[in-house]
């Protein structure tokens, strides 16, 4: 279970810290609880947590070949996805990791194919199976890894050079018994062949881990990279309306402020009972220090301000394939008002938030949240009979959005498909259905 910190509610940080000392299952379980309790929430946090846990899955779970690894990642990924179905980024990260594994495996196979042709003809003469089909051979034997089994072929291979055994690994890994890196226990007699096979798994493992670390780097740098496009989009004298500015939007504005003089209208979201009103004090301070004026607009409606606004900037918790975004409740009204007055709506989102789903596939266009933040629970007649619907996140239809800025640059709606194709493998797109 989660590391019970007696006084503090667990957060992403405590969770990440806890990862090291915990077995994998415990980590996953604790993340599931954290997600369900919304103690880890928001696209950024969920993405980071997912990436870190998948890294653990790759590093610690028992697997001996690519397919087992894929299955492991899919299984655990599905668990996380179900824990927070509204956080679409979770399955995005899972897809990214799956794609990464497939890529690495393919590279290995390809490399193996080359080697096969060049070096090992004589040695391999006895092995008829072409290396392109490792998957079918591996399927029928879902042998529990880690059990040392008699292996008729391995001993023979053991004498080969290591790079050949690498290629062989792909053919025969089915029966590879050792998966010791994660568990750390020398299960077998540690014979040479086993060791060599392991070393190849280790290679894949470390490559995948490197890949996941790259994804995590991408997550942490996305905001900065997005901010890099700020000065192009924001012009001197602009009035920028930022609805509930997220960290991404804040960075974007602050970066623009270093180059341009404009005015930011910060629209705080609906005020909530008991929750200290979001003041955006640090954002205001930074902007003001750079000579950018701020106007904090406290309202739930935006048509009135739109004639003055020149651009609307908003963050998203997910961007869907058709260009719709999932974002904070109230954003649809902002975007619609901007559209009414023909003001561009710019959505800032890391590529990792781009989902292959379409808006029709999203179960519910709105997410209802805690109603007690607006209606006192002591108010009998209200509690009794009125259905309070506090929408905390909603879908903004694609036609209201003019531009998407990701860490790769500014895009139009039509370009989203290409980015999707670059980042996800076709076979992983249906992931949440599994």
């Amino acid at each position, binding site marked *: 279970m989660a590391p019970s910190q007696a006084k503090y509610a667990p957060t992403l940080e405590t969770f990440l810290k806890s990862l090291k000392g915990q077995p994998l299952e415990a980590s996953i379980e604790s993340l599931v609880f954290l997600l369900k309790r919304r103690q880890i929430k928001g696209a950024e946090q969920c993405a980071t947590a997912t990436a870190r846990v998948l890294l653990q899955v790759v590093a610690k779970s028992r697997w001996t070949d690519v397919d087992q690894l894929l299955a492991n990642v899919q299984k655990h990924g599905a668990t996380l996805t179900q824990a927070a179905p509204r956080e679409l980024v979770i399955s995005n990260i899972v897809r990214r990791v799956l794609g990464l594994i497939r890529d690495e495996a393919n590279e290995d196979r390809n490399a193996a194919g080359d080697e096969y042709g060049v070096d090992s003809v004589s040695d391999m003469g006895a092995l008829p199976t072409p290396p392109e089909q490792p998957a079918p051979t591996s399927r029928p034997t879902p042998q529990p890894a880690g059990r040392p089994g008699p292996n008729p072929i391995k001993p023979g291979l053991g004498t080969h050079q290591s790079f050949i055994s690498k290629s062989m690994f792909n053919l025969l890994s089915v029966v590879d018994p050792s998966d010791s890196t994660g568990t750390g226990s020398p299960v077998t007699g540690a014979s040479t062949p086993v060791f060599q096979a392991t070393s190849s798994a280790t290679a894949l493992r470390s490559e995948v881990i490197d890949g996941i670390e790259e994804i995590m780097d991408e997550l942490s740098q996305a905001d900065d990279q997005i901010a890099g496009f700020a000065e192009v989009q924001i012009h001197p004298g602009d009035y920028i309306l930022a609805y509930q500015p997220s960290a991404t939007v804040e960075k974007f504005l602050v970066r623009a402020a270093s180059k341009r003089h404009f005015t930011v209208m910060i629209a705080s979201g609906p005020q909530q009972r008991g929750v200290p009103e979001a003041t955006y004090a640090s954002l205001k301070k930074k902007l003001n220090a750079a000579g950018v004026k701020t106007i904090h*607009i406290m309202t739930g409606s935006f048509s009135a301000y739109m004639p003055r606004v020149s651009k609307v900037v908003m963050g998203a918790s997910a961007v869907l394939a058709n260009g719709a975004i999932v974002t904070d409740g109230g954003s649809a009204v902002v975007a619609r008002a901007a559209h009414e007055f023909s003001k561009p709506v710019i959505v800032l989102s890391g590529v990792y938030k781009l989902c292959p789903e379409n808006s029709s596939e999203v179960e519910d266009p709105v997410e209802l949240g805690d109603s007690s933040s607006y209606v006192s629970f002591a108010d009998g007649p209200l509690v009794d009979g009125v259905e309070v619907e*506090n929408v905390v996140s909603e879908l903004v239809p694609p036609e209201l959005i003019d531009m998407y800025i990701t860490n790769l640059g500014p895009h139009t709606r039509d370009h989203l498909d290409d980015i999707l194709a670059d980042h996800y493998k076709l076979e992983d797109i249906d992931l949440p259905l599994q």
Partner: protein
Amino acid sequence: MATEAEGAPLPADETSSRATSSTVPAPAETAAAPAPANPPKLSNAELKAKQKAEKAARRAQAKEAKASATPAPTAAAPQQDGSKGGKQPSKGGKHESSTQEQQSAAQRPGQPPRRPSMGGKRPSLVAGGEQDPRAAIPECFSHIPMAKRIPTSQANKDVHPAVLALGQQMATFSVRDSIARLKYMLLAFRKVIESYETPKGNSLSRHFVPHVLNPQIEYLTECRPMSFSMGNAIRLVKAKVNKFDIDTPEDEAKEAMLEMIDNFINERITLAELVIARNAADMIADGDVILTYRHHRLVERALRLARREGKHFEVHVVDDPFDQTGLQLAKVLRSEGVRVYYSPHLGGTHQVGVRRASKVIVGGEAIFANGSLYGAAGTCDLCIAAADAGTPVVALCETINFDRDRVSTDSLTYNEIDPERGSGEAFRLMFDTTREKYLTVVVTEYESETGNSPAQSILAILRKQEDQV
């Protein structure tokens, strides 16, 4: 200009007799007033210009007064802080009692300014202290007026006590929507008329408006920008006074004016509300889901009326999180047995609200000459969402709220800044303008053969009607 200057001696004398250093602003006040030969026929624009000039003068005066009498306001401040959030005394009966002291305060100009005993002081105004609260308004919105509490001691001494009290109530928003303000203004004017005595050598028809009525209007405008209905009513009252023959006996004229005001309240306010509620309730059918925005008294009446008639429908109230007036409506409807959905903010309106609803019914503060609706901020967003979803929008508005002269296509032309949130640190506009294309039908008390007409045709009829009066 000439008549105003000639008529000026009286007010000028009065201002100079005021204790605090008013010698500087007083001439400015009279000189800046661009009054035409016939003051009662001031056009809106001119009136505004005049008020503006006087406001500027008064502000300067207030500053000086404060500089000279700092101890008094600071002493009063903590008391007001403590009373923050306190309830206003209820209107009506309280008028007289609280105005007694104000009158005495106003008539003893040498004394330090006495604050009215009413609570409900807006915190930001107190915090504003010596500064002009308008100074904090972001420049791009600086053209928009804002309600302002002025100490009764700084009001023009010609302001009638009843009006003084009403002004405070308007500035603190305890008398709030356009019709309530109109009604109480007319009631206060009744008192002004009742206590009016034509000075010797003057005629009521020449004296009453410029020297008695106008100061009241100026004061009220200063407390809170006039609603369009108030402007309309004032125009009608002035037209009435103008029609009196110069020799009309005072009693007769006063009687006629009082009668006119009573009729006005009966016809244009009380009856109008009834008829509109009736018409709107007729539009509600069994099984409807009615979407409405915040609390509007016409909408509430219509919904309750429909319910009393045994209609079965559901209501979805969308509220403004910064001004939750819709909660009360939700509660009232619930207690009448209506199934109520309540959204604390506009989130989800596009995806759920307007799609579930079969009709949107909103109330308006005013309707402009181009047919666009001036309503509580957020009305526009809701109506646009409804139009997108193909849900019909019904707007309810009394004809007295129709403005025949002003045209507004966006919400920054005519609006008001929330005095509680009137700075860059916290800013909020109170109204917005919904373009006519998003309103399916406007329900007024005006009965036409087809039932309900678009706003444009009603305006045309109103123009004719009022020109005949």
